[in-house]
């Protein structure tokens, strides 16, 4: 086959390309593997000494002390009208996920001092979106009734946090109404499959 004569420039540039490709394409991978192995070895044989590795280890065990809302917690325990999180669960249906929260007053309110409490969930934030739906729970009478809120989430979405306003109205009108705005972070919400 006839060959078109080539200028030396072209084959030079090709040689350079190959050289660069070999250095980047094989050199970097070899370095990565060497770093990995030396990292593994040194963390095992020299990792016990007080070092950065050690600090990291102690900080990353199971999360225990992060104040996340979970089932059994009491919300607004610093007020006259604390609320118990009776249920917190994610129900998984084929076409939607439902986040269900059941709240229950911990004790009967002192009728003389308080007329009741109104809880407004202004929004619920999931990983991908914020559901801007007001959900209101009111306890006015002298009962320990449980109240439930359900959010319908798109499939795959988990609740992350919510903005809540707590308003209790007092009769003695000394303080009038008490407004508290809080931000709840949800930790792990147990999930259940439903059909």
């Amino acid at each position, binding site marked *: *086959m006839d060959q078109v004569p080539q200028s030396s420039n072209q084959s030079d540039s*090709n*040689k350079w*390309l*190959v050289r660069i*490709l*070999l250095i*980047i*394409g*094989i050199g*970097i*991978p070899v370095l*990565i*593997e060497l770093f*990995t192995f030396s*990292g*593994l070895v*040194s*963390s*095992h044989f020299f*990792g016990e000494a007080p070092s950065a*590795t050690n600090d*990291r*280890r102690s900080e*990353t*065990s*199971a*999360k225990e002390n992060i104040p*996340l809302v979970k089932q059994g917690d009491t919300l607004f325990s610093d007020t006259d009208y604390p609320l118990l999180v009776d249920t917190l669960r994610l129900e998984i249906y*084929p*076409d939607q*996920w439902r986040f269900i929260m059941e709240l229950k007053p911990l004790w009967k309110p002192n009728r003389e001092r308080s007329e009741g409490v109104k809880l407004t969930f202004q929004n619920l934030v999931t*990983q*991908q979106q914020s559901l801007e739906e007001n959900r209101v729970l009111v306890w006015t009478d002298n009962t320990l009734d449980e109240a439930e809120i359900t959010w319908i989430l*798109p*499939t*795959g*979405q*988990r609740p992350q946090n919510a903005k809540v306003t707590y308003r209790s109205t007092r009769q003695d009108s000394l303080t009038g109404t008490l407004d508290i705005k809080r931000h709840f972070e949800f*930790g*792990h919400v147990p999930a259940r*499959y439903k*059909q």
Partner: protein
Amino acid sequence: MTFIDNYPKSAKIAKANFLVAFIALAIGGLFGLIQALHRTGWARNIISSAEYYTMLTGHGVLLALVFTTFFIAGLFVWGVTRSLDREPENMAFSWSWFWIMLIGTLMATVAILGGFVEGSSIRAAVLYTFYPPMQAHPLFYIGAALLIIGSWMAGADWFRSYLAWRKEHPDERIPLQTYMTLFTMLMWYVCTVGVALEVVVLLIPWSLGWVNQIDPLLPRTLFWYFGHAVVYFWLLPAYFVWYSILPKLSGGRLFSDSMARIVFIIFLILSTPVGYHHQYADPGITVGFKFYAMATTLLLLLPSLLTLFTVVASMEHGAKQRGGKGYFAWLGKLPWGEPAFAGCALAGIMFAAGGFSGIINAAMNINILVHNTIWVPGHFHLTVGTAVALTFMAISYWLVPQLTGRKLKNKTLALIQPYLWFLGMTLMSNAMHRGGLAGIPRRTAEPNYSQFDFEAVFGTISEIKWQIAIGGILLTVSLVFFLWVIFNSWFRGERADKPVDDFIPAALSGPEHAPKILDNIKLWVLLAIALVLIAYSVPLAEMVMDGLFSPGAPTIPV
């Protein structure tokens, strides 16, 4: 004159197979990128976390089952035709297996993609292992069955060619490429019995609602009867390329023809009885059978280590013929500027690394350390995702010109592509292995938990995440380069009489040195069946004895 001029009918069917393979590769690759970005938290808004599993199913099925099967069919059509010097005996039959495979693929793909349509009842987010009692739409199982039946017919087609050739050449040795094809397909017949029984006897009746409960362990065991041998069904065609084409691309000749035959025999015999090594962590399978599977799995290292020697020696032969010298200096004389060679060689290097993590997976008790962690996908992205896929891509640069009669275009891109793949895969799989040691699970949309954190053995988890994401991006860029080069060459390449040098020189030590017994197909098949019976007859009988569908779990649709 090149392949398309000599064998136009074979070229046409090989091209049809390649076309399906590359389309599956494109879609599956895109899914892979989205998963990498979703998992690592780089982009959680492309799909929802529930759709992640639909996408993961698509990624696994389209790449591990569809891309591989169609590419292998095209490759074997090419190899059998050229090494026997005859086109298929009956083109109608050849096209019928192609169409059956394609229809099966389309059915399964529709079932999977249905998961992206809101409210659709056609769903198949069961991943490519489709473990019951999670149930996909019947289309998925029927499609999978058709794909397998089509592949059986393809194998029959090649046996037909071989028998017709044998009549005319009663005393000749089986040409090496045909030999490797036949042995790969024999292994495929032995192992697909398991998955065919699983799908046809258990899953299709169950998905159609004829039975309403299923024993999860029996189909799982039948799946893994097939599920590791399928890995060798992907790998052996890569070996086919390394043994029969790579020596030529290096400028040398195959070092030993007999060694290639021995290697394929060992794979035929040992590939199937190893399946339990995917079930080391399963309750319900006795430790004795797990141990037997471990011994056979580790023995399977032997043919790969032999391949390592023979193939590297063939490359060294090429380098030395080109003036290479010394113990290591000859490596520099290899044609690293040739895309087809560079891709195969890089794939081989990565396979050596994947071999190591494979040993860890295979060794019964240490497997528990990494079982179902992201280490495992890290491992098979080295073996299937690189050793096999990169070899297939690289050899396409050499095969597609022969099949189309057109020269390769965009050669610079084609050269950068395998190096980019190698770099991207190193980043991704290195991080996956490290993540696996930290206990991060595989097959999960969001490896972020609220009750605990993972601790990396060294470094940080966020570093592992960005490494996976960047690796995934580089792999996608590399894949786009590949598809662009192939598309351009296939449809716009310059026509030429001889678009590549397609001459394959004879082996240094040829079949004349190989004992005749190596070609005794019946003997090796019987041995393979005997070893399978030892491994599987007792446990399967135990699982079947208490009822085919019990202990039965209720059906859970996905």
